[in-house]
């Protein structure tokens, strides 16, 4: 069991590293393509590695390890007979890191999901500005206008929810805080999530992360995929409203509002808000810097080639 967990961790690290380097050297800036690459980095250790155990159990034999494997745990001194050698200690640290990364994201996600359920809060009728923004974005995206659920709350709440039929949750506090242009950009952002069925993808990623909670590489790849999902929505919103500035300003205002509320909280929460604001600011900078890059088309054979190449490497990597 320990050896198999170690193998998925090693495979995850290898896949994530290759994807990271490829995205950099090939200058892949399109969020859509980056999502696919990060999903590949997640999927290989999650599904590919167990498939190798089933289809090629002889990979664990000494003959394969000594003759064919690129790297084998047995060559690295993994079986020195000690209960916790240096490699075992490293693996334990990686497992701790993976678990911490999973809990760091899963706990706030679940808490936010529970506390922001529309059924738990007073609802209001969408304003004309809000409805117009949603209708305009729906036309631009070629979809039906999803249901708008307006919560009476001073806190800025904005999210796309619903697995089968996505809908937009927005709070009155958010509508008051943003200018009409920023509100249009924010709604366009959430509409893009609805168009791409991102809530389904978000839950799928969370389930995958839960299955591989011990694997830091899978956790980081999933976080990168989530970031790219947000970037895709940012870029789509910028295209729809015709202004990157409105998207950036709305993002900064919303994250700043969350940050202000964090000043009254404890150090851990402030640190959490700090991370969140830094991530938002990075998105803003990326949006300002690379908006044009989304128009570049990735040659269709790169992803399958990478998948096959990585599959071969992982096949020859035995824990």
């Amino acid at each position, binding site marked *: 069991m320990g050896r198999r967990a170690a193998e998925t961790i090693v495979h995850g690290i*290898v896949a994530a*590293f*290759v994807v990271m*380097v*490829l995205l950099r*050297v*090939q*200058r892949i800036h399109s969020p859509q393509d980056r999502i696919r690459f990060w999903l590949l980095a997640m999927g290989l250790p999650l599904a590919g590695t167990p498939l190798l155990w089933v289809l090629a159990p002889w990979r664990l034999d*000494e*003959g394969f390890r*000594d*003759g064919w*494997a*690129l*790297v*084998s745990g*047995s*060559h*690295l*001194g993994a079986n*020195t*007979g000690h209960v916790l050698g240096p490699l075992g200690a490293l693996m334990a640290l990686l497992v701790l890191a993976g678990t911490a990364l999973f809990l760091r994201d899963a706990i706030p996600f679940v808490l936010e999901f529970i506390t922001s359920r529309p059924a738990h809060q007073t609802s209001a009728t969408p304003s004309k500005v809000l409805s117009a923004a949603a209708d305009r974005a729906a*036309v*631009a995206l070629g979809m039906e206008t999803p249901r708008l659920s307006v919560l009476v709350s001073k806190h800025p709440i904005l999210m796309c929810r619903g697995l089968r039929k996505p809908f937009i949750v927005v709070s009155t506090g958010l509508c008051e805080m943003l200018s009409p242009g920023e509100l249009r950009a924010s709604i366009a952002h959430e509409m893009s999530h609805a168009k791409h069925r991102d809530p389904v993808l978000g839950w799928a990623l969370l389930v995958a992360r839960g299955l591989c909670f011990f694997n830091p590489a899978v956790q980081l790849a999933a976080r990168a995929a989530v970031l790219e999902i947000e970037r895709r929505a940012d870029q789509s919103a*910028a*295209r*729809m*409203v*015709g*202004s*990157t*500035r409105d998207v950036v300003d709305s993002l900064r205002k919303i994250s700043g509002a969350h940050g202000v509320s964090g000043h009254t909280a404890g150090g851990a929460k402030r640190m959490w808000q700090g991370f969140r604001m830094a991530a938002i600011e990075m998105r803003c900078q990326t949006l*300002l*810097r*690379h*908006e*044009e*890059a*989304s*128009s*570049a*088309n*990735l*040659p269709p054979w*790169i992803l399958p*080639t*990478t998948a096959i*190449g*990585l599959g071969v*490497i992982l096949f*020859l*990597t035995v824990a």
Partner: protein
Amino acid sequence: MERPLAHNPDRPRAIPGEWARHGGRGPWDAGYAAWTTLAVLAGMALALRAGDAISGWVRGVPRGVHLCTSVAEAEARTGLSLGQFGQGLPGYAFTTGGIRTTTSPVRAVAVQARAGQDQVTLLRSSDGEIPLVLRPPLPAFHEITIPLAAGRTATLRAARQADGSVWQDLEWPDGVGKIALRGNGRTVELIRLAKQVSEELR
């Protein structure tokens, strides 16, 4: 309708870095994409292989050789029995990290023991020659055949190391495999051990 980025007034006039380097051709040159993909994948494969090799080099264990914690583990791994010598060579104590095996291309085991300054290594292969990774070659200056028992002979080779010490190999056939003793002690002591081993592992 979506507004094309080209008409976006907020669009940067020039994006520094990668776009400029491509001289306006666009980033997707098939040749560039192909060789970078192959280079990254090959680089990762080489890095993994190097990590495997470096680890073995640091521990002094060549690829394909396994350090065992006990003779029992070595016997289980190779299926080769060392008989009573699994408990220790008479008068010698096993050295730490001195129990090594190979499983490919030949199953073989090497057990190193020490008595004072004298070292001796007992080697046994399942078939064919004892692998060089377990018994590095020695340039012999002297080679003779000596009788071990009735109808059984062994080849004794002697070699001088760079530090001036003399090492001797005593090797005899064991079915389709080989048994050997390598030591730096006296020749009569090596022959005495060889006779005991030959009798026990017959």
